[in-house]
């Protein structure tokens, strides 16, 4: 099985070369047969990669320690779920997952792309094949997971204990589906540049792919954030770590792309910009892969000592980013710019959205790379951490978020800002009220906290206002309103859901950061502690044994107002003997939308233990908002006009008359 997997991987590499060259030549010579090769080859390449991945996964499942990769990252005592997820919990395996998803997307284009112009389809598959070829070669040359050990060791060295968590099952696949999903947008852009034209089908195709990738990336980042929150044991949800930034940059750029693609699809404007943005978004994905994979983040010098992998990815990076940008510079002038619009219009709002989002992306990019550049060009070392990003990112986001409710309400081409402001009056009044209530009635509220709450309410109600206005609220009877609401395109609901989700995330962040409380103390069994109105009794420390670890579990009772225990929270310190590592299992109790969070520290000689407690108000909204954004994207995807692979209907959709712009 293992050798089959290895062989399949080599074959997939060979096929990716075929997929690159044959359709490209075919498109050049206008040869239908050669162009048609791309589809079946892409599907077969995916099947082979899947076979290869399955072989590695089965080696993990059966603890085949004759594979160096399995030996280094698995142990026979691990629960089965962690054996399997361990497949991608390491460099080699995660790169295999990367190409699996890349070929998966290529196969999707092949399967659903029958309505694309043949030459565009051929070129897209060729570019997708080229990316695949580069990464297959990278895996085979520097990161082969199928290297054997002889003699095979009896026992493995265990998966990093921090990764022995359900988060590993969900986070990387979602993240990669997003990250790598943007490769499709990239391939479409490069294909358009090769062809030298952007036609209607190009515009219709790019947006759903962007939506799919964005949806998964949103989920991946939200999941990663929650995982870090509960696993790392001090309750932070975002650290501005370079690794996080690596996934956040494509998300920001992808969000910009999502919005500019709307303009392109609906009004055929901003074509060139959208194309550039698609290239940049995937370039940032590649850059993220480089940053994470090369070890350059630890230190420029650490990278220099073992540069094989890093240099290889750097070459891939240069080839694809440099190549596509050069092609862009060469061909962009040939592309025709699209329709005209007044600055105050839906298009204008989306342009502003793009301005702020790309600036934010660039800020994160510069902040992430600056220490590396300083270290490379001088003897100095500087740090760029959370305080920098908070100080630069937040001021960029606030004006953008204030503008969000205006966008969907503005009409295309030429909007009436005053009319829109009038419609948003109710939402504005409500958020003003929310600010006042926060400032006056919640103890410890700062001005910033009140503004934050107001902003969140503004976003949520602004999204609802959009739906209400489009349904004709106030002008028509309830019955007609319901019918109109049901008749609205799904993408309108998608937009509202995503923007509402954004508001909820903001509310969660503000709630946690501004109203959260914390206590650090040393407790003896039987003692109680109070935190923001919650009383906790420390019951004691109880040792326990897991399948591949031992733990000391600290039990806490949540005491109700009557003095009786109403719930239990337990937090543990686990020791994994194979790796000689200790991890903290935080204790979390969800109360409504808020959470109590407990983390255990060192035990004292007198039987006391250091305990760190947090009250995190509304914290679950941070990720709940993310889920809602995903739901919004899914809703948008179900819109007939966007459905992936839906045959292009000639029937013209009649715009809902109540849509924005009417007085």
């Amino acid at each position: 099985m293992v050798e089959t997997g290895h062989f399949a991987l080599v074959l997939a590499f060979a096929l990716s070369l075929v997929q690159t060259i044959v359709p490209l030549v075919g498109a050049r010579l206008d040869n239908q047969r050669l162009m048609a090769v791309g589809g079946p080859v892409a599907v077969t390449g995916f099947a082979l990669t899947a076979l290869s991945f399955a072989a590695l996964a089965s080696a993990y499942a059966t603890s085949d320690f004759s594979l160096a990769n399995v030996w280094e990252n698995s142990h026979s005592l691990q629960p089965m779920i962690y054996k399997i997820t361990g497949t991608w919990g390491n460099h080699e395996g995660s790169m295999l997952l990367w190409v699996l998803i890349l070929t998966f997307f290529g196969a999707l284009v092949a399967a659903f792309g029958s309505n694309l112009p043949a030459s565009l389809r051929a070129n897209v598959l060729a570019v997708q094949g080229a990316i695949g070829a580069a990464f297959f070669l990278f895996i085979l040359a520097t990161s082969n997971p199928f290297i054997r050990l002889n003699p095979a060791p009896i026992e493995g060295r265990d998966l990093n204990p921090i990764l022995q968590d359900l988060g590993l099952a969900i986070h990387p696949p979602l993240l990669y589906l997003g990250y790598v999903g943007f490769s499709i947008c990239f391939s479409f852009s490069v294909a358009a540049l090769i062809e030298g034209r952007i036609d209607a089908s190009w515009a219709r195709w790019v947006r759903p792919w962007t939506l799919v990738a964005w949806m998964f990336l949103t989920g991946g980042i939200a999941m990663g954030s929650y995982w870090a929150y509960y696993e790392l044991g001090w309750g932070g949800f975002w650290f501005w770590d370079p690794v996080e930034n690596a996934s956040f940059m494509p998300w920001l750029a992808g969000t910009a792309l999502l919005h500019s693609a709307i303009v392109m699809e609906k009004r055929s404007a901003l074509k060139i910009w959208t194309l550039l943005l698609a290239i940049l978004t995937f370039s940032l994905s590649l850059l993220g892969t480089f940053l994470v994979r090369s070890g350059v983040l630890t230190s420029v010098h650490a990278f220099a000592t073992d540069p094989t992998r890093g240099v290889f990815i750097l070459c891939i990076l240069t080839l694809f980013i440099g190549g596509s940008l050069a092609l862009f510079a060469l061909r962009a002038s040939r592309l025709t710019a699209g329709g005209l619009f007044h600055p105050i219009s839906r298009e204008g709002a989306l342009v502003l959205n793009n301005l702020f989002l790309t600036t934010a992306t660039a800020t994160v990019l510069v902040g992430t790379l600056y220490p590396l550049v300083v270290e490379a060009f001088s003897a100095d070392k500087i740090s760029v951490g959370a305080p920098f990003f908070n100080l630069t990112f937040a001021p960029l986001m606030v004006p953008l978020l204030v503008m969000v409710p205006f966008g969907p309400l503005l009409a295309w081409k030429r909007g009436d800002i005053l009319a829109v402001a009038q419609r948003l009056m109710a939402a504005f009044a409500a958020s003003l009220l929310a600010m006042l209530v926060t400032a006056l009635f919640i103890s410890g509220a700062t001005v910033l906290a009140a503004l934050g709450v107001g902003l969140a309410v503004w976003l949520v109600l602004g999204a609802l206002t959009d739906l209400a206005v489009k349904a004709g609220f106030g002008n028509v009877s309830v019955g007609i309103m319901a019918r109109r609401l049901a008749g609205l395109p799904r993408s309108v609901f998608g937009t509202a859901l995503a923007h509402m989700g954004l508001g909820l995330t903001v509310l969660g962040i503000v709630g946690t950061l501004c109203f959260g409380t914390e206590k650090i103390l040393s407790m003896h069994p039987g003692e109680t502690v109070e935190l923001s109105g919650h009383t906790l009794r420390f019951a004691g420390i109880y040792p326990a044994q897991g399948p591949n670890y031992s733990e000391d579990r600290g039990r806490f009772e949540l005491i109700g107002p009557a003095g009786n225990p109403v719930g239990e929270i337990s937090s543990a310190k686990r020791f994994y003997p194979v790796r000689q590592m200790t991890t903290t299992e935080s204790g979390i109790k969800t109360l409504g939308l808020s959470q109590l969070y407990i983390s255990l520290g060192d035990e004292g000689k007198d039987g006391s233990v250091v305990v760190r407690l947090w009250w995190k108000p509304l914290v679950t909204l941070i990720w709940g908002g993310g889920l809602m954004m995903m739901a919004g994207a899914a809703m948008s995807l179900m819109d007939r006009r966007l459905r992936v692979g839906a045959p292009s209907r000639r029937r013209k959709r009649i715009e809902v008359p109540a849509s924005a712009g009417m007085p």
Partner: protein
Amino acid sequence: MTARLSIGSLVLLLSLVFAGAALAVKPDEMLADPALEARARALSEGLRCMVCQNQSIDESDADLARDLRILVRQRLVAGDSDRQVMDYVVSRYGEFVLLKPRFDLRNALLWGTPVILLLAGGLFIALNARSRRTLATKSLSADEQAALDAILRRD
């Protein structure tokens, strides 16, 4: 082991960065005066743990971070202002210790990027919008009108 892990997956690296970071500030380090302790916590969040990756001394479990936390508190008790404490720590450990880089010439590009890009982008959009508007409203010249008439007549 560290070298091998640091090339792990995205998650792996992230987790490695924070590995073993259970509890940072310990009760015995904390100052009795809540106002002073709050200042110490705020300062700690801006100071990097030198032996960790991208972790502040407030979050880190490392011994060196603990030493720094105690140092910050000692200076605060001695009556230093926040600025004096930071300057003192930088004088001993270098600028690397600051999680928020200073506003100086070397970091001009770092701090300037958001402002420059926003202004440049805004200007570009504004100019583009204006030129488009003039383009859109400009009527045909006499020659163009004649050429158009000729084409229309031909059909």
